[in-house]
């Protein structure tokens, strides 16, 4: 039981903490248009407490375009807003704009029937107060008109113009006296303001209720009367402005037909309203303009007679000229019609041709910009663009117009259109050839690519061999460069791959050098630059292929095979050595080491001893080929030992493999020993010692002269029942003087 007071207290607190309190006016609110109604809580005003929050529900109006107007004395003592959605909690809410936010006692909201209820929410009460408040549901137009009516009348009055001068114009009036140049701007300023007023009144009219016209609504009557006066004033001002405009144009273009012609459309338009002008003014203007129109045909005759370009004819007389003639009551001759037709056609052609040329130029520029990366897709796109330009080519009709077609500009126009047509066709051909060439290049079909390039450059299918020469040259050079790069790269890649693949091969080496990889993948036969350029390109490719064929391939092969050879000369050593020699026959490089390796393996090459008293290794190779039989072997020695002697001579010591020399005691181990092809024999003046086991199978030959030219070659032939490579060591030193 003791808990009951606490329950009440809690309920009270919860009630006291409710966010908003609804104020329910009595009498209830009515959304009808009834003027301002005081909002009461019975007979009293609602009392609002500081820092409390309240809301009042306003029912929607029955029609659109209504405003809810609230008049509050203490607007500044609170903060309130109107919203369509409200749940009594903290929101957020979307307030409807207070159209009288700047007013400290008024709130105006646009309301409509689409919301079931509007909520006027007081979220801030800055002090305790009594809410003294009137509300009004009012159509929007009325509310606005009532507020602005006085201002509208003022505007109309302030911008009305005196009509005396305008209406006083007679056929003889000196129109210069109107001072049109000054009057016209002032008049136009007034007209602007009046038109703004008319627009505002028209906007009010747009929200009139449907049955307003038949009502006796005071505000509506005031509106109608104001609007009538305004329209009349504006009609007057517009006609007056037309008159002043014509007068002003005529005045300003006096002595300048071109300027006059520039004003013709405006004047013709103005003169269409001549019936609305005072008769005197209308007559005066016809007289004025007729004089000027007489100068039009002579003017154009002179203009066209001296025009040689195909640029637009300016000023361009159009139908307004005819209209002006007619407005002025002047007969329109066939020359005038012809003039208008010709100039119009000429300018159409001029513009179209300029457009075509511009687009072609743009294509050209695109080509230039994109040429470095242009391929088949680009040139195909260019072909498409040219195709799109083609229909835009004008038909050369201006040149066919009687009388005017003979003017130089017309003749030239006809010719230029023809040229443009040719250019378009040629352009299409050029891009087509370029696209085909590019496609072939991308597909690496070099002969087809070169054929297309030749066709592109020669321009055989074009209207003239010189047509688009610069562009063709530019594209050809670009694609030609691609062709060259492509052929070169493909040739390089092919030969590089071949060289890598066969680098260590020692089977049938000469056949490797006959392979077509050492020729270009395609032999270039065309150059837009000339034979010299073609030769240079071919040379560049050939140089690379030759570099591979005669330098890198043999060089790498020789090194690789020699490294393999030297690991074990007993493992197919002869074949490897011969492969090295075969490679060496093609080698044109300058690497002395490589040449040295070749010479080491070449039985025909002398092995040079370049330092005295030092053994050097060399190989004896068979020069016959009998893998299972007896073969003939040769090795050659030469001396290049630095010596100051004029006739240096040496003992040559040769360490032989025991297999070769083991029978030297019973039979001659060598077949022949020659010095410069002349046999050396013991019976002669030379000494040959026999290689025996006791001297470690070392033979000595003496004396061997080293001539300064290094051409003395000691050559030793022997036979051995096998097919292999022998390692031999040789040493030279100053000879002993021997008795025998």
């Amino acid at each position, binding site marked *: 039981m003791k808990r009951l007071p606490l329950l009440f207290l809690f309920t009270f607190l919860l009630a006291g903490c409710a966010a908003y309190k609804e104020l329910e006016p009595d009498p209830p609110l009515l959304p009808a248009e009834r003027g301002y109604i005081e909002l009461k809580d019975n007979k009293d005003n609602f009392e609002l407490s500081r820092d409390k929050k309240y809301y009042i529900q306003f029912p929607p109006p029955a029609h659109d375009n209504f405003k809810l107007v609230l008049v509050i004395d203490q607007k500044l003592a609170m903060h309130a807003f109107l919203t369509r959605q409200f749940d009594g909690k903290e929101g957020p809410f979307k307030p409807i704009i207070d159209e009288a936010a700047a007013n400290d006692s008024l709130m105006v909201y646009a309301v409509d029937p689409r919301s079931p209820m509007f909520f006027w929410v007081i979220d801030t009460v800055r002090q305790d107060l009594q809410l003294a408040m009137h509300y009004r549901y009012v159509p929007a137009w009325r509310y606005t008109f009532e507020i602005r009516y006085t201002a509208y009348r003022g505007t109309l009055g302030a911008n009305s113009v005196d009509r005396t001068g305008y209406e006083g114009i007679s056929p003889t009036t000196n129109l210069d006296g109107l001072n049109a140049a000054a009057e016209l701007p002032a008049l136009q300023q007034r007209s602007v303001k009046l038109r703004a007023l008319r627009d505002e009144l028209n906007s009010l009219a747009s929200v009139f209720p449907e049955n307003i016209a038949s009502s006796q609504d005071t505000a509506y009557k005031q509106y109608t009367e104001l609007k009538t006066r305004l329209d009349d004033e504006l009609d007057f001002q517009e006609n007056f402005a037309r008159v002043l405009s014509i007068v002003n144009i005529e005045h300003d273009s006096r002595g300048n037909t071109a300027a006059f012609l520039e004003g013709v459309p405006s004047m013709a338009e103005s003169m269409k309203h001549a019936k609305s002008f005072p008769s005197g003014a209308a007559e005066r203007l016809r007289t004025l303009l007729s004089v000027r129109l007489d100068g039009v045909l002579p003017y154009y005759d002179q203009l066209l007679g001296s025009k040689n370009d195909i640029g637009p004819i300016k000023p361009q007389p159009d139908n307004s000229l005819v209209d002006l003639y007619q407005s002025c009551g002047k007969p329109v001759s066939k020359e005038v019609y012809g003039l208008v037709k010709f100039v119009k056609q000429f300018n159409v052609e001029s513009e179209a041709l300029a457009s075509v040329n511009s687009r072609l130029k743009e294509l050209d520029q695109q080509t230039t910009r994109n040429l470095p990366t242009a391929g088949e897709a680009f040139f195909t796109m260019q072909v498409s663009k040219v195709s799109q330009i083609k229909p835009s080519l004008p038909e050369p009709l201006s040149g066919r117009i009687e009388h005017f077609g003979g003017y130089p500009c017309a003749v030239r126009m006809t010719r230029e259109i023809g040229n443009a047509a040719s250019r378009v066709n040629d352009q299409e051909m050029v891009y087509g050839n370029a696209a085909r060439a590019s496609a072939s290049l991308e597909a690496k079909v070099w002969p087809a690519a070169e054929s297309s390039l030749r066709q592109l450059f020669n321009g055989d299918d074009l209207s003239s061999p010189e047509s688009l020469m610069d562009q063709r040259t530019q594209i050809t050079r670009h694609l030609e460069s691609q062709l060259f790069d492509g052929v070169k790269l493909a040739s390089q890649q092919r030969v590089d791959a071949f060289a890598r693949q066969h680098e260590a091969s020692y089977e049938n080496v000469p056949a490797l050098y006959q392979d077509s990889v050492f020729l270009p993948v395609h032999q270039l036969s065309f150059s837009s630059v000339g034979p010299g350029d073609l030769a240079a390109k071919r040379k560049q490719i050939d140089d690379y292929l030759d570099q591979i064929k005669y330098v890198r391939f043999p060089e790498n092969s020789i090194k690789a095979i020699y490294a393999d050879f030297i690991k074990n000369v007993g493992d197919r050593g002869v074949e490897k050595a011969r492969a090295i020699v075969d490679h060496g026959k093609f080698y044109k490089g300058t690497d002395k080491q490589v040449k040295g390796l070749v010479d080491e393996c070449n039985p025909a090459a002398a092995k040079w001893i370049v330092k005295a008293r030092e053994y050097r290794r060399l190989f004896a190779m068979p020069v016959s080929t009998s893998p299972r039989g007896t073969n003939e072997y040769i090795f050659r020695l030469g001396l290049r030992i630095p010596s100051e002697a004029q006739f240096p001579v040496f003992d040559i010591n040769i360490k032989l493999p025991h297999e070769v020399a083991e029978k030297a005691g019973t039979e*001659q181990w060598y077949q022949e020993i020659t010095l410069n092809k002349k046999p050396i024999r*013991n019976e002669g003046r030379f000494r040959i010692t026999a290689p025996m086991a006791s001297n470690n199978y070392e*033979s*000595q030959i003496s*004396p061997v002269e080293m001539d300064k030219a290094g051409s003395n070659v000691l050559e030793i032939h022997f036979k051995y029942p096998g097919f292999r490579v022998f390692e031999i060591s040789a040493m030279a030193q100053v000879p002993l003087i021997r008795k*025998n």
Partner: protein
Amino acid sequence: MDDNTNEQQPAEQPKQPPRPVQQTRPLPPDTIGEETPFHRPVHPNRKRWPLITAIAVLVAGVGVLVYFLTRPDLSGEIVIPYISHQKPAIDPHLPSTNSLADKLDEVQFDGLFNLVASPSGVVYEDGLGDFRGIDQNNVVTVRLRTGKRWHDSWQVAAADDKFTITKGTDHLFGPADLNFTLKRIQQLGSLSPDYILVSQALITWGFQGPDMDGLIRFQFRGDRIWKESDIKEVLSFKILPDGSDMNALTYRVGSASYLALPPKEGVSNYYRSPEGGGVIPNILLAPFIDNSTYTTELRNTKINLMLDTPFGSLSPILGDTAKYFVKSNISNTFFALCFNTARLNRDQRRELRRLINNKLILDRFYKVGTEQARHILDYKGNHDNYADYLNRSVFPSTSYYVEDSVVTPAVDDQPANPGLLPDTVRIQACLNSGFREEFSDLIEILNDPTVTRGKVRVTAVTNDEVRKGNYDALLIAVTGYRSNFLFDLYTVFLREPDLETYRISLQTVPDGRGGLTADPSSFRADRNFFRLDPTTDRADAANIATFLQYLYGFMSTHQIGDKQEYARRIDALEHDLCLGAWLFSMPSLAYFSTQFDASSIDLYGVASQLSTVKKWQERKK
């Protein structure tokens, strides 16, 4: 060597003996020390044909058989002919004008190492030494084979048809013998090719040892890599026993495969050494009057080896390859005209040289282009390459110096001006000192007016006449020349004008720098073929003196560069002095009977043709 050394070869050979000379033919004793009966005497030029013919006539059919059964049988013998009055005097350290003498060195003497031929070239066999090695300081170690006996360890007694070889007191080889030999070679100096051979290797002429192991050590020079073959080459000089006469005419005591038998008429035959000799027991020297009958004697089986053949040409009567085989060598003989500088001045000598057309002479000599042409074959297999033998310098065309262009003989194409010459240019030639056939032909050719334009008269004279020097030019044959570095100029320019005696007139004096130089007195008119004498030839005295210094420099140096330079200077100065006309060399051809197995005979040089004689074998029938 003494400061004032006379490098003369003092011994004289005996006078020419009467012909024919009988020689006994030794057969091997069955037992060493036992008396062995001699076979019948050998009469190489005895005429048996009448008896055989008579038998043949009397007993038809049987006669032929008898002939074959009784014809001369040279089994077990190597029979070599020689000119009976040119007995080979054997000195292993000096060159000889008798080519056989040089060859017999190999038969009789050992070096520490012996150079012998093999099918593949030369090899060095152990002789009196056993090579042990060379260290990094170039000290060569050799073990002396001190157990080896000198030939005089055997006593050979000959009586009638018998000779007996008995064991005598052992005379063993020892270091003293080596020392003696080195001393002798050093004393001979540039006269001996061995001097050059050794001096280029040894810093001092001696050795250390032997030690306890019998090893001796030589200090070799450090200027080259001494290969084993080089070392053995240097130590291949022949060794004489200690106590030998330093200046003997001939040396008989050796240690090699064949020992010399007691000489008969001054000439020894050889029998294989009881200590281990050759396969074929006997080497006999068969004397003949001259070389004209050599080929006939070979065909008649009186000899079975002919180391030189007349004209050096192929013999038409020895063409049967079933009976004979040929081995050719490089030339070692050339013919020359030595101008007498005492009778012809330099201009005359020049004109005389221009007059002598050696190609014309050579063509006539070999009857080139005629049916009687003497065909030649060189060791390279070239036939009838006569032009290769023409000489244009004292250095023959076959020599290293010309062949390798060290010397480029000047060519004088000027025609001769006979007006400067004496009315008759008197040339002498001696037919009694070998090459009788060749000299006879040359005399006839030179006397032919179509060859020498009637300006020359050549007469055959005796050796005594040659010594007198009454000639404008002397036709000589220079034999045994080497085509290698050791071409011997002493033999040409310093040989005394005595064709029966080989004597070199070289006087040396100290050069003031610790060495020697040639004394100008070496050139004395009566001591060289050219009558060169700076004391009498005032005009050319300086050039002659210079020429002598060049000769000595060439012959005494062991520096090849020096040799080359001296060779050039000698050639040039000789050309200026016009000392001779260098006619042509003669091919060297040896004929062998097919009694011998050709495959067992290897040659490596003319002077060493007999180096492998101990290995020669007879062909198995």
